[in-house]
């Protein structure tokens, strides 16, 4: 069980994010949860209790236009976090009900230290392992261009090196990441899209 990292939140705070809870429930069902709504509520509650994720949840998914400063986390970091917490909650649920199905095909050990930082570290490691596995299955061109991007080259430099124009590089980068995302989804869903 993950201890609360931030101050207790009002009981109705989760209900302020009904649409987000619904989207998470949809995803929890795909992850194999028997009670996707409860899993979504629990994942959302834990994210609202976390000092780092709470401002991002509020900014991106709040019903009303944000009044405060922009959050430290970009949207992709928040979505990766929400998904990681949701997977953790679903695994907890499956443990409780006495069955355990491989959700991500990656062997995950429960963190000995159950602090929020430990959870973040575990999610990060799990995400990296899945990404590394799926990255290796990408087409050569996508892997090459994403690797050059990871090497820090700008589009114009990649274009020069690969002998293509800059727009082509931009297209390859976005398609490569999206294709990687599709493979990750397929992998996490146990093969079905």
């Amino acid at each position, binding site marked *: 069980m993950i201890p609360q990292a931030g101050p207790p939140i009002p009981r109705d705070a989760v209900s302020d994010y009904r649409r987000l809870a619904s989207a998470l429930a949809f*995803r929890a069902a795909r992850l194999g949860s028997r009670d996707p709504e409860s899993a979504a509520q629990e994942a959302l509650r834990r994210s609202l209790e976390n000092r780092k994720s709470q401002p991002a949840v509020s900014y991106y998914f709040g019903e009303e236009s944000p009044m405060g400063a922009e959050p430290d986390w970009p949207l992709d970091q928040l979505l990766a976090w929400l998904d990681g917490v949701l997977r953790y909650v679903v695994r907890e649920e499956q443990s409780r009900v006495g069955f355990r199905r491989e959700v991500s095909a990656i062997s995950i050990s429960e963190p000995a230290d159950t602090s929020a930082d430990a959870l973040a570290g575990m999610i990060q490691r799990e995400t990296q392992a899945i990404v590394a596995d799926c990255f290796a299955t990408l087409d050569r061109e996508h892997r090459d261009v994403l690797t050059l991007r990871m090497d820090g080259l700008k589009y114009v430099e990649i274009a020069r090196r690969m002998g293509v124009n800059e727009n082509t590089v931009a297209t390859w980068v976005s398609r490569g990441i999206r294709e990687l995302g599709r493979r990750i989804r397929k992998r996490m869903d146990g093969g079905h899209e």
Partner: protein
Amino acid sequence: MSEKRFDRFACGELSPAESRDLAQQALSDHHLFDELTSTAIARHGLAARRRKQITWPRIAILAAAAAVVVGVVLHAPQRNSEPVRPDSAMSTPPTLLARNADSNPATFRGLDSDSRESRATGSIGSIANGIATINLGSLDGLSKDAKVDVIRGGQVVGQIKLATIFRDHSRGELASGGSVRVNDQVRVSPSARLRAILDRIDAALARGEAEKAVSIAQQASIGNFDGESFAAELSGDQDLNNAGVIAELHGNPTKATELYSRALQASLSGHDRQAIEKNLARLKGAK
């Protein structure tokens, strides 16, 4: 939602306000939420591999660390020969500079430490319709329109003009030499070789491995430093400075002085200028 917008999200180019719009849209479309999440995991997982963004203080730390290591390397042999003059200009070791980091937060930098070494020679893997594929690529300093010599039995038998460059292989037209065959050896030009070495130095600095960067500079097998074409294509002050360090470490102070001077002319950053001026002053003081 437009594909273009999704592509911009995939590339990390949306502003926070645009991201909020997209997030709000996804709340009404669970499939979009699902696809955004998968793409976010891909982006986030890749971003975790990027090198730590280099800030100027970090560059200063890296440069200082490199300087210390170079100092140790330069002075170690002298312990057994003659004492180092403490007031000598040479008591200040040469400083390697990291290239300016990309300000785009979506950028990933740093050649993996498990990347294979750059190579000066490779071979032709296949030839089809006048297009040859070779097992050398950007890792080896190659770029579009570069020409590589084809060698057989120690003789140049042709050239390939490269059109498409990948990380570890390339494709290009046979520019000359009708007898070029699969398995013939190919050799990169000294300038490409130098570029590959500078890339490795920069990647090592980016990972915080100053000692490794110095080691790469020391072990660089460049060939002739005196040729006019050596480093002629370089323009960035960091690369020119680091090429100067390589020349200096290989006992060519004249070439090093020339490269440091060019680096100084190309330098726009105060921090870089200080380091380059120090390198130059030390060499001049040693003459």
